[in-house]
């Protein structure tokens, strides 16, 4: 579905992604892991067209059609079926919950926006309850749900999620990860950026590890979860065989 091939991305004077290759197949949950500043957000922004690489390719292929993402404006990338739920939620705080959801469907002209709104209310009952309230008055976890629901309102084929667990209480993180699995169950492919590698690997099929703008590890999530190098670096566990 998504193929990134040799991306070189610069931000200001420094190169933040080096020759990055990454693939997401239809129906997968793929985790992109890495420490703060590794370049995870930059990768997602490049896919969404908000950062333009100096070199490489980014192709979205669906239903036998290929979209060269590097030639599409951000709004055309959304229209092609990519939704980006940004880091830090970024809900429109001064707009109502319902207006936020309506903006998620900004490009849609079909008649099913209203029924999708109702569906988001089923998926996240709190959003239905607070539909008329300001998004800024929701709790952090509720805002995260709103941000995900808003992204889903564009009916994406590929959902980019940037650190959905950031700053949330453990219970809420569980809820969010359940929702991510539900979303995949409904047929949406997910590229999940996380620092919380343990949880991400539980729901992901495959994963990539990014360090200083370079992919240093990749493979099946189940295998990576056992990988000593990853455990050492991101799970806070001592490598197997050491320690108590």
């Amino acid at each position, binding site marked *: 579905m998504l193929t990134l091939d040799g991306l070189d991305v610069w931000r200001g004077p420094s190169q933040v992604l080096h020759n990055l290759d990454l693939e997401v197949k239809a129906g997968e949950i793929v985790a992109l892991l890495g420490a703060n500043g590794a370049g995870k957000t930059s990768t997602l922004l490049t896919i*969404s067209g*908000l950062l333009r690489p100096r070199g490489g390719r980014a192709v979205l292929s669906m239903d036998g059609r290929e979209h060269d993402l590097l030639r599409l*404006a*951000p*709004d055309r990338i*959304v*229209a092609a079926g990519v*939704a*980006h739920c*940004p880091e830090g939620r*970024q*809900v*429109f*705080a*001064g*707009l109502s919950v319902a*207006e936020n959801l*309506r*903006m*998620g469907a*900004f*490009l849609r002209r079909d008649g099913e926006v209203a029924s999708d709104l109702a569906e988001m209310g089923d998926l996240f009952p709190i959003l239905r309850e607070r539909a008329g309230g300001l998004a*800024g008055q929701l709790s952090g976890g509720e805002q995260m749900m709103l941000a995900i629901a*808003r992204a889903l309102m*564009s009916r994406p084929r590929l959902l980019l999620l940037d650190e959905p667990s950031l700053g949330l209480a453990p219970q809420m993180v569980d809820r969010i990860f359940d929702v991510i699995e539900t979303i995949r169950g409904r047929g949406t492919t997910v590229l999940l950026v996380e620092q919380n590698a343990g949880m991400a690997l539980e729901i992901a099929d495959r994963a990539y590890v990014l360090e200083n703008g370079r992919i240093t590890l990749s493979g099946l999530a189940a295998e990576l979860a056992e990988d000593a190098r990853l455990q050492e670096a991101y799970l806070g566990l001592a490598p197997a065989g050491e320690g108590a």
Partner: protein
Amino acid sequence: MTGGYLLQQMINGLVLGSVYALVAVGFSMIYGIVRLINFAHGDVLMVGAFSAFAILLVFGFPLWAAVLAVLTIGAILAMLIDFIAFRPQRSAPQVNGFITSLGVSILMQNLGILLLSGQPRPFNLPGWMRTNLDVLGARMTVLEIVTVAVTLLVLLGLTYFVRGTRMGIAMRATAENPLAARLMGIRVNKAIATAFALGGALAGLAGLLWAGRAGQIDPLMGFVPGLKAFVAAVIGGVGSLVGAVLGGYLLGFAEVLFVGLLPPSFGSYRDAFVFGLLILILLVLPNGLMGRSTEERA
């Protein structure tokens, strides 16, 4: 002082406040979406007044044609200014836009003087607009009644636009968070152009009303209403449309009462009073009447 006199002053305040509100609401809308203090906004009003002059008094078209023309010309001019002067430096610091807007303002005023001469020209609306009517015991010209009514209609329409339409909500979303707006597929430059077009149309309309009130026009005429709109917007909490309208009316009333209730010799201190009021309000409410705290906006 009689009740009738007070009522007359209130009505005068309502009329003056309406014009201020029309200009201030556009000013505030533009600030809200691009964080730009646009000092050229008053000069769009001036161009609106000259357009009305040309349509009505040079070509002799009817009033409705002038209304259509000032709305269209105001909208197109404001979008052009955005496209040429502001859009190329969208990511530059805020102060650059502010200085640019001063430059655009001076350029427009000087072009006006160069092409149209600095001499004031008489601007007389059709006679029926200037006849006096009796309203609740006070006197109002047809123009004044129209000014108040049109302003209320326009503000209602604007409220519907920003609350109830897809593009209006997108404009507010862009003002809140341009990055997230882009991720929704909103074209930020289009949303900004829409704000300039609306603000410009309202300024153009205000130009027609202002010129009708003043009875004359000149290329520097946009300065005072532009400045008053700025004050009204800041009083209301710049970026807030409701605040701009409140600020406009508050300023209109305050000004008229100041001039009307104090001895005539104080009349020339009118503008000093306006800025005194501004300072007072900002001392008590640093973000204006409806403004949100700067932390929240950042």
